[in-house]
């Protein structure tokens, strides 16, 4: 460590040490059946993560901590997923490699191509097309229609729509004067976002609907000059919530399972109680990697990965993950505050809010602090769509952390 202050180099080495230790534990657990695959996966993980962190410090002069935080999260995730199901662990490593590739790709595309704020119509149309595809080709998984399968590769269109929504909001609020001239201009945006939320509701994807709403209301709270719109938005949410509860059984069931899961332990409350068992068994220090029974929890490697981590690595690791998300959100907001260009400022905010709200909803859900809605824990849960879209979002955040040349975006300069 030099006198110039902490450089990203030393946390990178700490991450390296963590990974070596975690992998050693994994080998101990595997015991007699250490195979080349495990070894290869382990070495692959370490190399990919160390190298990408190293490369990033060379090419980006922006914030290098966000990528570091994310690679820490994903390392914990991969070790856990590999321990639950080694073939999924290897797949996750492949997703991670593609994700990191997309991160750099997004970074370079955004660095050298400008003018993203002018395509608002394109974003809106693309979002509707994705919804359309979901409804026509979608299949039901875990109660929600949110998976589309093409040629054997399944993906969740909503993961892409999340990013589009952030781009729509950023384009809109970085150029409000354009909309103000229109009659009912400000209401258009609300209409569009609410139509998305309604569509998600119909797909029974309550978690994503909540994420969309969360991003919308927070950006609106910060940038909407017409304050009564913010109030309308909150009011509509309350009405929508009550209507949803009375009209849709799947909302009611989730709510009841939250209030008293023990009463419905054999059906609606099964998942959440299994999650609580796992966390309770873990204690503060965990049962030890490979010594718990995370596979008792349904869909443990996606939505409930946090419970599995708490069982085997302990609640202290769980708290560590929560704090990593907190720092990630904090760094994201810091990037937004120091960004001069309004469009990129809002993008940075949107992405930080996305990471923050999504992790809060699923963490609170598996802990039974708030009603459970199915969502992945960004960067930790298993899942291609989730990893890829999260890395694209991170790529966007990375570019936002750099100084955007003002001469290109002079119209955004503010006081």
């Amino acid at each position, binding site marked *: 460590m030099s006198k110039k202050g902490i450089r990203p180099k030393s946390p990178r080495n700490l991450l390296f040490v963590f990974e070596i230790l975690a992998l050693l534990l994994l080998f101990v657990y595997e015991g007699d059946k250490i195979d080349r695959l495990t070894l290869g996966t382990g070495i692959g993980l370490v190399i990919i993560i160390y190298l990408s962190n190293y490369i990033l410090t060379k090419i980006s002069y922006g914030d290098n901590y966000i990528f570091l935080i994310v690679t820490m999260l994903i390392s914990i995730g991969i070790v856990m997923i590999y321990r639950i199901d080694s073939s999924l662990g290897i797949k996750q490593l492949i997703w991670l490699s593609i994700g990191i590739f997309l991160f750099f790709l997004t970074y370079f595309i955004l660095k050298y191509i400008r003018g993203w704020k002018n395509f608002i119509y394109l974003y809106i149309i693309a979002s509707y097309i994705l919804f359309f595809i979901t409804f026509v080709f979608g299949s039901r998984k875990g109660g929600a229609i949110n998976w589309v399968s093409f040629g054997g590769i399944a993906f969740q269109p909503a993961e892409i729509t999340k990013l589009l929504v952030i781009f729509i909001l950023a384009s809109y609020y970085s150029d409000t004067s354009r909309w103000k001239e229109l009659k009912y201009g400000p209401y258009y945006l609300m209409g569009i976002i609410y139509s998305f939320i309604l569509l998600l509701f119909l797909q029974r994807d309550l978690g994503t609907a909540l994420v969309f709403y969360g991003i919308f209301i927070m950006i609106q709270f*910060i940038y909407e000059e017409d304050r009564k719109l913010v109030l309308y938005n909150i009011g509509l949410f309350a009405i929508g919530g009550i209507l949803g509860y009375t009209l849709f059984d799947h909302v009611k069931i989730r709510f009841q399972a939250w209030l008293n899961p023990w009463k419905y332990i054999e059906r609606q409350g099964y998942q959440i109680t299994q999650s609580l*068992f796992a966390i309770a068994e873990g204690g503060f220090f965990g049962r*030890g990697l490979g010594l718990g029974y995370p596979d008792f929890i349904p869909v443990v490697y996606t939505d409930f990965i946090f419970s599995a981590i708490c069982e085997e690595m302990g609640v202290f690791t769980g*708290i560590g993950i*929560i704090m990593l998300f907190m720092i990630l*959100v*904090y760094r994201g*907001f810091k990037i937004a505050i120091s960004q001069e260009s309004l469009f990129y400022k809002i993008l940075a905010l949107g992405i930080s809010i996305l990471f923050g709200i999504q992790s809060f909803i699923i963490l609170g859900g598996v802990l039974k602090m708030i009603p459970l809605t199915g969502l992945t824990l960004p960067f930790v849960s298993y899942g291609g769509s989730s990893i890829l879209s999260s890395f694209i979002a991170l790529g966007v955040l990375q570019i936002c952390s750099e100084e955007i040349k003002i001469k290109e975006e002079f119209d955004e300069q503010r006081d």
Partner: protein
Amino acid sequence: MNKETKRIIVVLVGFCLMFISLIVYISYFQVFKAEAVKNNSYNKRLWINEESILRGSILDRNHKVLAYSEKKDDLYKRYYPYGRLYSHIIGYSYREYGKVGLELQYNNALLNINENAAINEIKNLVIPTTEGNNLRLTIDHELQNKARGLLKGKKGSIVAMNPVTGEIYAMVSLPDFDVSNLKEDWKEISENPNSPLVNRATQGLYAPGSTFKILTTVAALGTPNLDKDYDCVGSTKINGYIFKDYQGKAHGHIDLKQALVKSCNTYFTEKSIEIGKEKMGNVADKFLINGDIPFDLPTKSSQYPYKGNLDKTDIAASAIGQGKVLVTPLNMALVASGIANGGEIVKPILVKEIISKNDKVMKSYNTEVLSQGTDPITAEKVKEMMVEVVKSGTGTNARIKNIEVAGKTGTAENASGKSHAWFVGFAPAKEPKVAVAVILEEEGSTGGKTAAPIARDIMIHVINNIKD
């Protein structure tokens, strides 16, 4: 700082609070909730070892087998040869209904698994666990059987223990249920208004009636300036409320000893006002009323809420075990033990030893003093009075030939309209071998008449049959 930046910071602070609330919640859950959650019978982790390990047997103090497991169709099955007799002590361990009683509390010992998963894993590498440990209880099967027979057809509880070592010889709570036949009976058991699932001995809270006068007597002896004499006219008015003696009978001029022997209500109600609720409360505290009794089975705390709002009527009523005082039978057995044991109250023990499959004693539970209820001199004085209760007072039905018995009867009014019949005592008075508490719930007769003979039979059995 402009408006937007301020709002951004508001949202950021909001996020930080959200994440901090997650951390607070998970810590709270781990510290306060986790233990109860883990023991839920739906937690499959409780059963994971059950498939590969032969669950240990549970034995009485003379090594008689009370519960055991055997392999049947590749699965271990649990057998309870005495059905109802140990429903509240041993409890049960079934996949469908979970675990309760000692089967729950000593689950790890019975399966020979360690609390710590890592140690367990290492242990399993060296010698895989295939058989659990046996539990040897302090219970005497013959006495337990006899006690249940004496209580049969009634509601209530009996606790018999060694006042010096704390070993519980018998603990019965009726109504009970048949643990070997849970499947057929479950619906009836769970819907029965008499709650057979509740262990009345440790969790039943009753008005102690006149048995509580033992504590009032201790408090009176500890109040130096108290005038121990009194003229009883059969009733007295305290704060507008009239307290009467049994059948309104006047006892005339009496002292403390005669008051206890004759169980004079007016004496104790009047004197308790002079003693005061603080003094009464301190004595109650020392006898573990208001406190948790550490025990192998879940207990409820008895209560004498002297720190709350007690008016004079309440103090007077509680002095004779009515009003706001509530006790568990186990607690009353400990009160008797305390007087028997020179004021020292020992921890009640139900499990004597944990024995490994090759008959090695893994752990044995020894006598522990929980509290000094009173000083030896006071205890001796109270003991003399209690001997007189059985010799010539209300407890004559507990008399045993050639053996000096100390005791106190109680007849407790309650909401049901039918009084509870109590007897607590110990024998032999000089060298106590057994302390006993008997309560017959809603019996509608006096403790001296119905509870005392039961206590006598228990004490005779212990003195004649339990040697070590």
